[in-house]
């Protein structure tokens, strides 16, 4: 069961990572094939496991501010900034559609 171009396009948008070439797509196909082996296992009546520490209570601390005030430190690592803001390019602009963006999938 091959993955359709629609799904591949959807994945590129969700992940904001591109397949790059045929090898990338093939890699996904193989990954799915590999994962399909899971269906051989009978898991009737089995609850999914999130964490091996599920029988314990997660630690919660008091809602007190104990550290912070390190704006300068944090901004040091950002490339684009203005005063105390991280600067991003304009938002609310969706990634171009498959036919309009530079992606290997365009030819498919």
């Amino acid at each position, binding site marked *: 069961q091959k993955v359709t171009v629609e799904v591949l396009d*959807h994945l590129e948008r969700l992940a904001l990572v591109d397949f790059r070439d045929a090898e990338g797509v093939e890699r*996904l196909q193989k990954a799915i094939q590999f994962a399909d082996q899971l269906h051989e296992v009978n898991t009737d009546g*089995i609850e999914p496991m999130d964490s091996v520490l599920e029988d314990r209570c997660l630690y919660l601390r008091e809602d007190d501010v104990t550290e912070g005030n390190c704006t300068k430190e944090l901004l040091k690592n950002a490339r684009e900034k203005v005063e105390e803001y991280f600067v991003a*390019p304009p938002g609310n*602009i969706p990634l171009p559609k498959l036919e309009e963006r530079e992606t290997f999938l365009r030819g498919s």
Partner: protein
Amino acid sequence: AALQGALRLQVSAALKEGQVTPTELCQRCLSLIKSTKFLNAYITVAEEAALKQAEESEKRHRKGQPLGVLDGIPVAVKDNFNTAGIETTCASNMLKGYISPYNATVVQKLLDQGALLLGKTNLDEFAMGSGSTDGVFGPVRNPWSYSRQYKGKSVPKSHSEDEESNWVITGGSSGGSAAAVSSFTCFAALGSDTGGSTRNPAAHCGVVGLKPTYGLISRHGLIPLVNSMDVPGILTRCVDDAAIVLGSLAGHDPKDSTTIQDNFKPFELPNLTDVSKLSIGIPKEYHAPGLSSEILALWSKAADLFKNAGAKVIEVSLPHTCYSIVCYHVLCTAEVASNMARFDGLEYGHRSDMNRSTESMYAATRREGFNDVVRGRILSGNFFLLKQNYENYFIKAQKVRRLIANDFVKVFGSGVDILLTPTTLSDAVPYMEFIKEDNRTRSAQDDILTQAANMAGLPAITVPTALSKRGLPVGLQFIGHSFQEKQLLTVAKWFEKQVKFPIIQLEEVMRHDHNVFQHQKSASFS
């Protein structure tokens, strides 16, 4: 002898008595790092900082007030742990030039004990891989490739390519850390272990690799791969040293809510002489396809060793072992897809020049910053998390995870104290051979013996056992009960004493830096 094979405990004693100073020790290690540069074990060497730390340690020692056993001891840290003021790259273009504003908790703990941080070690990009070959700074070379014991070398003509191309991999993804410890450039190193990333290279490099119980050691500051399985790993040259490092790192961290709140008491390992009360389990499924006959024989010999010493050795079954790799594959890629989402170029790391829109900037940044392996896992992970696949893949994998964890519960509940298994399928392969298969295939093959312990969150340790026919290290693995590191390490130490694994004879280094070894021969510490 200071660097070669000496127990760190002995070095600590030497430092205390002034037989060697922290600065001398530091300088020797730094010099050795330089002369073993061809191993490519280190990404960043923090020479100035380390020497400064050495100076501070020296002051304390002169006053007779060392902070503890680790005071003045040179250590190295895998480059996926945040280190304040020192570049942290995860061997990726995405974080090249990233200088962290804080220390990971485990790094801070080491520094608080006076350890000298020599530098950051090389790894597979974002710890994804089992060879330490897929980072942007190039592959790490196994120091044993340059040992007198390695029989895979061709006759050396000069520094010809022949010799160069036969070098073997370290295994991964903590290969840099393993190589660093193995080549004596530091006394202990931190790695990380999600599917075997500390144990695999430890076995291939002939050092001790400890994966602690999930929840024992803080992950705060360890750049996450799989939040529900990652643990910091410890690499040392002997089991006692691993116990000491564990003692300084374990315990609840308010900054990592997945660390358990139980009080942790550091322990010294007893010298076990009577193993008759031990029950050792040999899981038959670990006789995995592809397991070399050599390692199978060693495993059998080890089982006999315990039996002849009076321990109860029984065959047990962990029926879902063969599914742990598939399960890991789905859960890992799913968590990776989520964890890698933070890399968007805005707050830190690489940022693309593309600025038409936020989305296109993110996409370009991630296209430029991640290698094929990382991108591949992100895309696979997103596939398994799609609404139409969530139940069939992600939830399914979580159910299989419970089955795998339950297998261990059953076996340990039936009276077995420790499981004995091989760590790797074979000894280290030559780099040229390793790269013929792709990363995912390799990982799937190589993680088979180590992954289930991560699935179940159990502690596991690999102990160097013997040299293979090719003269390369082979390790065996012990898996213990949750949070029973003391018992696990006690048994491992007993085993280590029985097998007397040989010391690596690094001839390349001897050729390059005669001085370092000359000095060592005169100083005696044992």
